C-alpha cells in the first residue's frame, strides 16, 4: 500500500551487506550453516551423545542449559543450548538443518508441526520477578510491624509459591506454528489453546528485561487487534529463538497483496553486545539529548522544590524515624519514576527500516526491539513539549491497532517513534513512515475568528488540514501536538456540535482510527466541518480502493 513505495533501490544491497557482516562476525560456524540458525552450530553447546535426543514431541533443551553459565563459553551459551539439541527429532519442524537458508521462511514445515516449550529457565525468571512484586506488596510498614526475620520468611514463602506455580505453568505451556497461525497452549486445569491468525499481526516485539539479558533470554510479544492487552507474550525464549521466530512470524504475516518478503535479515546473534539493528538505519538518538530532554520535564524541573519542602519539614519537626524517611524516599522515587523510566527505556534508541517494516530498538536495563509493518501504522503524533521548545525538539509517537486504550500502563504501549529529536530529524522520519508527507508544509488552516470565544488563547495554534495522503490536526497551547492520520487508515468520521458551538456556528470533526484517539479538528466553521467530513469520507474511500 502506501508503505511500499518509499525506499529506494539502495535497500537490497544494504540488506545483503548486513548479512555479510553478521556472517563474518560469527565465523565459528560451519560454512554450510544458514545465518538464521544461530544456535545449533556452536559445538560447545551440544550435550554428550549419551543424553540422547529430546524425547516426545516436545523440544526439550539440553540439560547443560539449566546448569548455569560456568563451563560454557560466554558467547551465547544459553541461546545455542536452548535452541535445540544436537539432533532435532524427525518431527520437529522448526528448522530442518540441511535445508538452505531460504527454506527457513519459505516452504511449509514437513510433517506435523510439534509443540515447542518455552525456555526451561523461564520459571526461574518468573519467580524472580514475583519476588520483586512480593517485596513491593508487603511494603515498608509490614517490615516495621513484623520485624526483619518474619518479613524474610513471608517473602520466601510467597516467592516459593509463585515459583512452583511458574514451573507448573511452564510445563503446560507450548506454542506451535501451524500454517498461517500461531497456536499457544496453556493451563493445567483450564486448558486453553489460543490460535492467532498471523494475517492479523500488527506488530512484534522482543523484550529483554534485565534478568533475561543476564541469562540470554527474551520475551516475544505479539500485538493483534481486539485484545485488551498484549496478546500472547511468549516468555521466555532464547534470544536466537525469539529472533528466528519473529522473522518467521513476520514472513508469514507478510503483506497479503504485496510481493514476497525480501530476504530475511539475519537473526539476532547471541552475544554480550547488542547487534546493530538490521535493515537500513534511519536514526539513532544520542543519549546526551535524551538525558537533557528528560531534565526538561516538569517532574525533574520541580524536584529541587520537593526536596527542599521535605527537608524543611523534617528539620522543623525533628522526626527522623526510619519509616518516615523510607516512605518519603519511595514517594520521591515515584515522582521521578517517569523521567527515569523514559531515560532507561529510550536509552540507545535506534530506528531502522527493513523493507516495509520499521525496526525500533531501545532500552538500557530492559531492551526492546520492536518491528512494525509500515502499513500497520494508524496514526503518527508529533509533540512539542513546552520546555523542549527552547531546544527546538520534538517527540514522535505512532499508534498501532492493538495497543488500544486497554493497556493501562503507558509503559507497555511501545508507541515511541522518536523519543527526542530536532525538526529535520522529525521531518525525515515522518517522511519515511508516511511517504509523501512533509511535516513542515502541511496545509493547516486555523478555525474561524469567532472560535476565540471557546479557545481564547489557542485559536492560532489550532489547525486542521487535508494533505495529499493524510489528515493533519494541530492543537495544544503549551504542549503542542500534531496528529497525522493517513486517509487509508480512517475508520469513521464524526461531526459533533455542542451547545456553545451551536451558538457560534462551530463544530468539531473527529477522524477515528483503530488505534489511539484518532484526530479531532475542533471548532471548525460549520460549513467547513461538513466539507471536511465529506472530503475525509471521500478520500478515505479512495484510499481504500485505489482502483475502483
Amino acid at each position, binding site marked *: 500500500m502506501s508503505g511500499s513505495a518509499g525506499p529506494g533501490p539502495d535497500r537490497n544491497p544494504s540488506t545483503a551487506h548486513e548479512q555479510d557482516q553478521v556472517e563474518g562476525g560469527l565465523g565459528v560456524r560451519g560454512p554450510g550453516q544458514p545465518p538464521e540458525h544461530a544456535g545449533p552450530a556452536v559445538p560447545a553447546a551440544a550435550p554428550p551423545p549419551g543424553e540422547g535426543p529430546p524425547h516426545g514431541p516436545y523440544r526439550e533443551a539440553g540439560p547443560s542449559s539449566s546448569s548455569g553459565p560456568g563451563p560454557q563459553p560466554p558467547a551465547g551459551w544459553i541461546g545455542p543450548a536452548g535452541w535445540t539439541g544436537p539432533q532435532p527429532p524427525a518431527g520437529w519442524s522448526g528448522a530442518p538443518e540441511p535445508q538452505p537458508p531460504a527454506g527457513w521462511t519459505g516452504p511449509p514445515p514437513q510433517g506435523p508441526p510439534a509443540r515447542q516449550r518455552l525456555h526451561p529457565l523461564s520459571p526461574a525468571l518468573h519467580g524472580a520477578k514475583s519476588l520483586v512484586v512480593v517485596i513491593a506488596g508487603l511494603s515498608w510498614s509490614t517490615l516495621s510491624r513484623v520485624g526483619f526475620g518474619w518479613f524474610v520468611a513471608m517473602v520466601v514463602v510467597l516467592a516459593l509459591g509463585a515459583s512452583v506455580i511458574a514451573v507448573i505453568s511452564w510445563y503446560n505451556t507450548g506454542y506451535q506454528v501451524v500454517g498461517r497461525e500461531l497456536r499457544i497452549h496453556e493451563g493445567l486445569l483450564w486448558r486453553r489453546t489460543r490460535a492467532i491468525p498471523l494475517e492479523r499481526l500488527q506488530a512484534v516485539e522482543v523484550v529483554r528485561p534485565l534478568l533475561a539479558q543476564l541469562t540470554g533470554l527474551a520475551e516475544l510479544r505479539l500485538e493483534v487487534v481486539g485484545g485488551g492487552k498484549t496478546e500472547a507474550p511468549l516468555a521466555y525464549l532464547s534470544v536466537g529463538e525469539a529472533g528466528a521466530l519473529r522473522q518467521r512470524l513476520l514472513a508469514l504475516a507478510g503483506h497479503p497483496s504485496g510481493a514476497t518478503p525480501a530476504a530475511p535479515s539475519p537473526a539476532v546473534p547471541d552475544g554480550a553486545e547488542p547487534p546493530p539493528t538490521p535493515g537500513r538505519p534511519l536514526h539513532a538518538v544520542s543519549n546526551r539529548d535524551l538525558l537533557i530532554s528528560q531534565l526538561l520535564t516538569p517532574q525533574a524541573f520541580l524536584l529541587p522544590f520537593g526536596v527542599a519542602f521535605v527537608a524543611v519539614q523534617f528539620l522543623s519537626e525533628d522526626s527522623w524515624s526510619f519509616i518516615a524517611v523510607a516512605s518519603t524516599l519511595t514517594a520521591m522515587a515515584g515522582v521521578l519514576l517517569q523521567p527515569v523510566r523514559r531515560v532507561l527505556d529510550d536509552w540507545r534508541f535506534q530506528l531502522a527500516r527493513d523493507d516495509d517494516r520499521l525496526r525500533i530498538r531501545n532500552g538500557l536495563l530492559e531492551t526492546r526491539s520492536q518491528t512494525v509493518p509500515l502499513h500497520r501504522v494508524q496514526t503518527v503524533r508529533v509533540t512539542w513539549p513546552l520546555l523542549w521548545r527552547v531546544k527546538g525538539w520534538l517527540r514522535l509517537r505512532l499508534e498501532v491497532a492493538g495497543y488500544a486504550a486497554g493497556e493501562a500502563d503507558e509503559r507497555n504501549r511501545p508507541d515511541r517513534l522518536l523519543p527526542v529529536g530536532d525538526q529535520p530529524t522529525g521531518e525525515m522520519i515522518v517522511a519515511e513512515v508516511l511517504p509523501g508527507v512533509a511535516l513542515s508544509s502541511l496545509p493547516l488552516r486555523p478555525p474561524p475568528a469567532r472560535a476565540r470565544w471557546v479557545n481564547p488563547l489557542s485559536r492560532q495554534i489550532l489547525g486542521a488540514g487535508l494533505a495529499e495522503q493524510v489528515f493533519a490536526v494541530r492543537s495544544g497551547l503549551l504542549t503542542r501536538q500534531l496528529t497525522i492520520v493517513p486517509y487509508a487508515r480512517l475508520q469513521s*468520521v*464524526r461531526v459533533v456540535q455542542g451547545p456553545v458551538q451551536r451558538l457560534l456556528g462551530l463544530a468539531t470533526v473527529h477522524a477515528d482510527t483503530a488505534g489511539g484517539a484518532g484526530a479531532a479538528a475542533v471548532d471548525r466553521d460549520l460549513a467547513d466541518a461538513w466539507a471536511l467530513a465529506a472530503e475525509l469520507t471521500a478520500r478515505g474511500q479512495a484510499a481504500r480502493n485505489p482502483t475502483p
Partner: protein
Amino acid sequence: MSDDAPEVPPPTAPTSPLEPWPDTVRWQSISTDLIWVELLRLAAGVAFVSAVLGVGWALTGSWPFGVALGAAGVFALWRAVTIVRAVRAWGYAEREDDLLVRHGLLVRRLSIVPYSRMQFVDVSAGPLERAFDLATVQLHTAAAASDARVPGLRPAEASRLRDRLTALGEDRAEGL
C-alpha cells in the same frame, strides 16, 4: 456567516446542522414508538427517586426533601419534552459506501461509518423495546470511538439493515 470563509466550498449549503447534504442524502427517521419506551424508562427512574425522596420527606419532615422532589418533577417534565424531540431528531441514511447516523439535541452528532470498516453488527432488543416491537442495530468498527447506533427500528427493518450491512461489509471488507 463568518469573516474568513473556508477555501473549500461545501458540496451543498447545509440547511440545518442536522441535514448536511440534503439533496444527496435521504434521511430515514426511526419509529416514534421509541418515545414511549424512553418515557417509560424515564417514568420508572423518576418514580423510584420520588419514592425514596417521598419516604424521606414523610419520615423526617425536613424541607430539602420537598425541594428535591419538586426538582425531580421539573427534571422529568423537561426530559419528557427533550425525549420527544430527540427521538424525532434521530435519523440514519444508507449511502452507497457508508452509513450516516445523526442524533442528539444538546450535543449534535453525526457519524459517517464506511461499510468496509465494519467489524460486526449487533442487533439487540430489551424487554421494554420488545414490548413495543422495536430493536436496536449497532455497527462496530475497529475504532472504539465510532458511534453508529440506530435504536427504534421495527424488527423487519432491523434485520433488513443488518443483512444489508453485513452484505455490503463482506463486499468491501477491509477491516483495518
